[in-house]
Structures are given as structure tokens and as C-alpha cells.
């Protein structure tokens, strides 16, 4: 099963859509390496947080992705 990527906030503009499916890969580093350079750089920034299946990832370098995971990229928030 492919991975489902979700881009929040301004990242949707960089990605060209709010969501995208990509072939499954085992790590976040491999996932980013497979994307366009501009998008990869935007998603890989330290201030972008990542959630997998609704849980925010504490250590992205150590995280193992599984088939069918939903990976959300979360830029700094601005509510209210």
C-alpha cells in the first residue's frame, strides 16, 4: 500500500495539492529524498513537525514507516 502524504498550511501550496500518494518507503529520510527538491527542503525544515497516523513523531530520524501510513507535515500553527 502506498503512503498517503498530507500537507498542511502553506506546505499545500509548495506541494501543489493538500494530499498525495507515494510508493511506500521505510523511513522519513527516504520519503523526503524521493520528492521534488523544493518540496523536500520545505518538508525537511526543523520547524516542520511530522505526524504519522495522527501521532506527532518525536524523533523523525529513528521513525520506521509502514505500508499505508498517513504522514502529515505540519508547519508552525496560527489559530484563533
Amino acid at each position: 500500500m502506498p503512503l498517503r502524504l498530507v500537507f498542511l498550511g502553506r506546505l499545500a501550496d509548495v506541494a501543489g495539492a493538500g494530499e498525495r500518494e507515494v510508493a511506500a518507503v521505510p523511513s522519513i529520510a527516504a520519503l523526503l529524498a524521493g520528492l521534488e527538491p523544493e518540496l523536500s527542503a520545505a518538508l525537511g525544515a526543523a520547524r516542520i513537525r511530522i505526524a504519522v497516523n495522527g501521532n506527532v513523531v518525536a524523533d523523525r530520524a529513528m521513525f520506521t514507516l509502514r505500508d499505508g501510513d498517513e504522514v502529515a507535515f505540519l508547519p508552525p500553527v496560527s489559530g484563533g
Partner: protein
Amino acid sequence: MADVRLLTGSFDAAVEIERFLAANGEAGGVASFIGRVRPGGGVEALELSHYEPLTLPGMQALAAEVEARWQVTGLLIVHRSGVMLPGEAIVLVAAAAHHRREAIEAVDFAMDHLKGDSWFWKREKRADGWHWIEPRERDFSDLARWDEKSAN
């Protein structure tokens, strides 16, 4: 006990406050805050987006934190998502307590965390199109106040 809602359509803040007052008839103090889309300044519309798996659970966790921190007898948190026009309500927080300080601080804490630490992304529409709104330095310093208070 807390009433926490994430709405995709407009709501009437006055009606919500009226209901909250009626439901909390025993409370000696009720504080509330309404945030609206600021009229003027060239903003034609505001859009808030959220992420379903995180946003409402995060708001519920915030409500639980408020209830753990202050002796509130009632708590209401309503936050909009979607496109809003100038003058429309974005957020409503109300807290009921036996004493005013508890109610006022509970609302203040909840608002700082809704603005600076909840899963919402905001953009505004001006004459030249949509612009994403980045968090301001003030949002971070407003949040940091509460860390200082708990450290004391």
C-alpha cells in the same frame, strides 16, 4: 464536563454564551472571550484549516489541562475552521467558576494555547490573493507566560 467543538460553519457567539450562562447557573463568575475576523485593514476573508486526526483531540486535551489547572465548574471552547468573513466569530471560550480569577485566567490560558499551540493554519484573502499568516513573536511570548507561572 467541558464542551469542546470544532465547527466548519458559522456560529452565534451570543446564543452560545446565553446557553452557557443558563447551564452554569450556580457559578458566581463567568468569563468569556470572542475572537472575530477583524473588519477593515484590507482583509476580505480569513480561512482556517485544520487536520482532523489532531485538531479536535488537541482542543480536548487543552480543555482537560484547563480543568486540571483551575477550579472551573464549566468550560466551553468553540473554534471555527473554514472560510470566514470580517465580523464573523472565529473562536469563543467561556469559563464558569466560583470566583472570578479562576474564570478569567482559565479563558486567558485557553486563548493563548488556541492561538499559539493548537493545530490550525490561517490565511487571509487580500485584493492580491491569499496570504498565509505566520505565528507572531507575541504568540510565543504569550504562551511562555504560563510556563513561567508554573515554574514559580
